């Protein structure tokens, strides 16, 4: 997993609540057995005029001009502003893979769905929860200011706006540690293999039917 330390990047606003993972990456792209290449299909139904299929030449597809991420000013965005309950619905990790593949490393929203939130950390993407009122302000600033950027500093847990305002955010200590160091958590769990074996030995006596 790629490390996450700081990010200074263009911000794109996606102003609607309950954005579900079906919208982030539609089902036809879940047939892939790979982890990469989902970026061109991020928000596929909103991004393109016609429904797409895997394997198409994406450069030939017509874009919906009014979709926010199709606007030239947001082309290089790596930070996404979103609304309540972002990433709800299906557990598909492809949603995070698509965001990451399209360049997004940070999503800022008032709330996230649990599974999506969790999936982000496994892929070097940082989901940040801020108060809805702060989000309202950021949305207004992004829309009013061309090339609006934010600086996200994970170590110090701060977001700095272009006028120098510092916003602080919370992050789970263990997840922060994994993200800062780009750590694979399977390796970390494997360090506790003896404890897992001891648990199993105890459970085999307490609940032998689970091991039949």
């Amino acid at each position, binding site marked *: 997993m790629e490390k996450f330390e700081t990010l200074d990047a263009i911000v794109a606003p996606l102003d609607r609540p*309950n954005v579900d993972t079906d919208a982030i990456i*539609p089902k036809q792209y879940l047939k892939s057995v790979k982890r990469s290449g989902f970026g061109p299909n991020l928000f596929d139904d909103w991004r393109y005029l016609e429904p797409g299929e895997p394997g198409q030449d994406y450069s030939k597809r017509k874009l919906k001009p009014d979709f926010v991420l199709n606007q030239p000013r947001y082309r290089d965005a790596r930070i996404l502003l979103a609304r309540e309950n972002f990433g709800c619905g299906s*557990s598909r990790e492809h949603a995070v893979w698509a965001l990451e593949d399209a360049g997004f490393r940070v999503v800022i929203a008032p709330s996230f769905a649990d599974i999506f939130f969790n999936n982000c950390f496994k892929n070097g993407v940082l989901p940040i929860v801020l108060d809805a009122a702060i989000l309202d302000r950021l949305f207004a600033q992004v829309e009013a200011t061309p090339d609006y950027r934010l600086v996200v500093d994970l170590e110090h847990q701060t977001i700095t706006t272009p006028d120098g305002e510092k916003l602080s955010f919370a992050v789970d200590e263990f997840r922060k540690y994994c993200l800062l160091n780009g750590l694979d958590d399977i390796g970390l769990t494997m360090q506790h293999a003896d404890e897992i074996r001891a648990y*199993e030995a105890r*459970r085999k006596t307490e609940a032998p*039917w689970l091991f039949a």
Partner: protein
Amino acid sequence: MSGRTLYDKLWDAHLVREDSDGTALIYIDRHLVHEVTSPQAFEGLRLAGRKPWRSRSILAVPDHNVPTIHRERGVAGIDDPVSRIQVETLDQNCSDFGITEFHMDDIRQGIVHVIGPEQGATLPGMTVVCGDSHTSTHGAFGALAFGIGTSEVEHVLATQCLIQKKSKNMLVRVDGEATAGVTAKDIVLAIIGEIGTAGGTGYAIEFAGAAIEALSLEGRMTVCNMAIEAGARAGMVAVDQKTIDYVAGRPFAPRAEQWEQAVTHWRTLKSDPDAEFDRVVTLQAADIRPQVTWGTSPEMVTSIDGRVPDPAQEADTVKQTGMRKALEYMGIQPGMAIADIKLDRVFIGSCTNSRIEDLRAAAAVARGRKVAPGIRQAMVVPGSGLVKKQAEDEGLDRIFIEAGFEWREPGCSMCLAMNADRLEPGERCASTSNRNFEGRQGAGGRTHLVSPAMAAAAAIAGHFVDVRDLV
């Protein structure tokens, strides 16, 4: 010290270790696997030179991509080459790692959340995970069951554990008795309408109260299935005699002495009377009428005698935007009577509503009636090969076929339209599935979520109708 909730008990029993900040390692008893969210996990395992910690804890089945016709051709019958590769990849991974898999031509094949309980592979007191958000279904057995992402699938394969922090406890109590024609689906849609699609975020929900106790295990599975649609990764119901009777004799269930030992333990799987919940929500079953969703989120729901709401009446501007976008997508107007919504297709199936009881409820409405001429397609997709066989033994297939429904082979089908079953742009469907998101049943398709009885009634009438007027 106050008593423990059911969730507390399940959590405590599976805790391998816990750090001072609450980050915990939880042991997983049952790992269910399907073809869509597992290939990258197996690939990761191979790349790291790892193998599954306990292959015998895993049960695999292809369900999302499988066609619901011409199954006699097996994997070769999947026309879409990309889908076929995904199913073949699952077959190969299971064969390489010694994992039990019900193949496409096995009568036990079906939707992963239907076959787990059907086989007794889901047992009370277990932790059950699957790379699928509707894993919450299995909580109906007093199990701790939740959906995980692909990285976590790989983590469970490699370590038999998950890294988690404990959720908060929520109790959703549905008191009293539901009226005739009001089903588990209507109850859970009403709950989601009440607490919202993010209402359960960060919580494990226990469903309780007389109306939940009165449900069969099939009904409880329908309720727990949609816990995720209320934002909760896990939903659960306490164990009672019905739970134990359901599990008894199933192929993977314990036998003889171990059965007695297990049952003694299972009877403790309920919240203590003095257990404290972080949040309690109470509904009266008598107030719940048959439900129909009108928008593109399951919380956008009302009763069959209701009307499409007006965004102008919504004070919250973010919600108002969501409502406007939803109505525009759904192609309906504020104030329109739900009963005036005309349909193009009807889908009866999915891990929410494809069990034998669901098919019986739909057949009871369809019996001796005909699908309305305006309906382009009405299809019934049983949840598993064994559900299909039982339905056929009971003659339900004849009832459906005579009424003009298509009788299909088991799979996820048009719930998410990964196989060939899908809506065309602009088509409107009454569906017994769990998500009415934009494009869920096919790009541009419009989904209204209902119970199996309500879906059958809509097929007969050509528009939504109160099933209580038909039976």
